[in-house]
């Protein structure tokens, strides 16, 4: 009974600035068990008064009609307002600068719903047959060009699959003496394509005219398993450990040679700015080469030589939202994904995936990384960056997922595995803003790209 009437009077009075007196009473009654101040700070006289006299006056039944209470409250308020004025600065203190908090809150409270909204399909959207796909970890047989055409090398043949209309065409079948095809790579214009061969030659093709433009030879002594374009420069990595920069416009096409790998170069990627080249080899070494250093010095020196991986470094992916961030994946003996600051050469993070890392792709729209793996799950794993929390595992392939390629709009991922299937995954969502971009490049391939004469 007492408690009930007390709390009602409390609730009423807590609206008026007189609250302090009630606060104290409430505090001294309620908080003794949870917070024990020192005795000198306790107001025993006051407490005694409130327990005995004070309550008599307030809660004597004859006094406590609601109207009277309201009257008393108003009286007290008026009385108090005459005495007190509540002031605050006109200029408010600055709201917390939300550099870290916003990130934190958005990742906690904002990103979760986004994640939930974006359904990540666990199964492939489409599966295509890929017979005779060479099951070789060190090759690069799949690429998706900016004109939305997917190129895949199956044995001696390079096929083109047009993702816009789903049509398939054969680009070229090379002779048995020079094949099989060991690498394919679209030029940035989405029209020209480079084909690396087992006999150390590289062919350049015009996919629109279905015509071979030239053959680059004499540079490598062994098969060319990795290719990377940087405007008019085609960089080739060979089993001989050499990396060559070929200017495809000129007759003596070899303009630079990078020596640093003892074994086959299986991973090769230019950074988005075109300033840095990352190369990974079967010698477990990752090199970062700087474009400007290479052209000025005759002796080609790497910017960084990184020997942290304990197995072949094939999977390389430059971060689309942070220019100097590189993700690399190690082979079966290493199984880690590592993150590098390529300016300093510092290893930022290393995550053991439990399986051979065959390929890595960044999501262009979200801070996410997709990795493809071999034994035992043969899965694709989607990671949140930088927390490296697993967001999803996409299974379906029955053998190691050797190659991955990303559609020009960044949403769809194609994966080719040793089970001789090519699967398409809608793993990176479907942002509307990204859609028009590839269309314009389809209609006018040279409108904004002037990279090949």
């Amino acid at each position: 009974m007492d408690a009930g009437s007390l709390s009602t009077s409390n609730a009423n009075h807590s609206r008026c600035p007189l609250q302090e007196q009630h606060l104290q009473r409430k505090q001294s009654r309620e908080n003794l068990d949870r917070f024990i101040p020192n005795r000198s700070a306790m107001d025993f006289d006051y407490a005694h008064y409130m327990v005995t006299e004070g309550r008599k006056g307030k809660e004597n039944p004859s006094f406590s009609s609601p109207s009277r209470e309201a009257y008393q409250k108003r009286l007290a308020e008026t009385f108090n307002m005459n005495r007190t004025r509540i002031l605050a600065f006109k200029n408010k203190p600055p709201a917390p600068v939300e550099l870290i908090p916003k990130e934190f809150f958005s990742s906690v409270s904002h990103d979760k719903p986004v994640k939930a909204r974006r359904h990540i399909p666990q199964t492939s959207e489409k599966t295509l047959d890929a017979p005779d796909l060479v099951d070789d970890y060190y090759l690069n047989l799949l690429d998706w060009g900016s004109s939305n055409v997917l190129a895949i090398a199956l044995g001696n043949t390079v096929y083109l699959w047009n993702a816009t209309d789903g049509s398939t065409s054969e680009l070229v079948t090379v002779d048995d003496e020079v094949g099989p095809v060991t690498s394919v790579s679209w030029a940035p214009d989405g029209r020209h394509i480079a084909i690396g061969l087992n006999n150390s030659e590289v062919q350049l093709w015009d996919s629109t005219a279905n015509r071979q433009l030239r053959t680059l030879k004499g540079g490598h002594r062994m098969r060319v398993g990795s290719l990377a374009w940087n405007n008019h420069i085609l960089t080739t990595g060979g089993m001989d450990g050499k990396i060559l920069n070929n200017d495809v416009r000129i007759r003596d096409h070899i303009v630079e040679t990078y020596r640093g790998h003892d074994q086959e170069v299986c991973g090769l990627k230019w950074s988005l700015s075109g300033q840095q080249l990352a190369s990974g080899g079967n010698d477990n070494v990752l090199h970062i080469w700087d474009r400007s250093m290479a052209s000025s010095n005759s002796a080609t020196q790497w910017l960084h030589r990184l020997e942290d991986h304990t197995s072949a470094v094939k999977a390389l992916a430059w971060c689309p939202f942070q220019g100097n961030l590189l993700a690399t994946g190690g082979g079966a003996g290493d199984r880690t994904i590592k993150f590098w600051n390529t300016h300093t050469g510092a290893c930022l993070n290393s995550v053991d995936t439990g399986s051979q890392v065959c390929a890595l792709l960044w999501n262009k729209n979200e801070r996410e990384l997709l990795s493809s793996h071999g034994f035992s799950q043969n899965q694709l794993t989607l990671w949140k960056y930088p927390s490296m929390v697993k967001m999803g595992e996409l299974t379906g392939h029955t053998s190691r997922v050797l190659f991955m390629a990303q559609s020009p709009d960044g949403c769809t991922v194609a994966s080719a595995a040793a089970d001789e299937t090519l699967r398409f995954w809608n793993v990176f969502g479907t942002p509307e803003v990204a859609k028009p971009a590839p269309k314009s490049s389809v209609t006018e391939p040279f409108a904004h790209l002037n990279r090949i004469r």
Partner: protein
Amino acid sequence: MASKTATKDIITLRGSAAIVSEFFGYAANSILYNRGLYPEESFVRVKKYGLPMLLTQDEGVKTFISNLTAQLSEWLEAGKLQRVVLVIMSKSNNEVLERWNFRIETDGEVVEQGVSREKSDKEIMREIQAIMRQIASSITYLPCLDEPCVFDVLAYTDKDLAVPFTWMESDPKLIANPQMVKLHSFDTKIHKVDTLVSYKNDDDDDE
């Protein structure tokens, strides 16, 4: 004791106002830090009251607090300040989540007649230290502020006071049916400061 240390332990109105307003400055910083309103790295550690205290380096907050303490000091000297309340509100909907209540009782005689009182600095510091410790330890029982928050400071002054043009009248920003915890007090013999924190009651089912 009095005769021996009397010259040392005299406290004037001006001195008391300085101590109390400085106390508010440090208390506000400590609350902002301990309740995580601003990022941890925007605070630096200093030694004060025999404790490591944290002071914000954020220029905006720093200016706000120094303007505040300057004004409070003026009002304290005039004996016009009844209470200072630091209010913590949700940034998104301005809901009041916490009120740090400092009630001030001023010795009228000192203000009117300009007499001074006796109390040693050391003793005052010890009392303030106890409050500061309690503020720091309050995070153990206060509910988590799991959303971005902003703060404001209310000054309860006498009615006859002219409102400075940088200030405006405000509502008391009360919390309905709050939980309350009283902290220590300190007394300069001229100004007595009672500290109390009230916060939003997250379980409404009791009582």
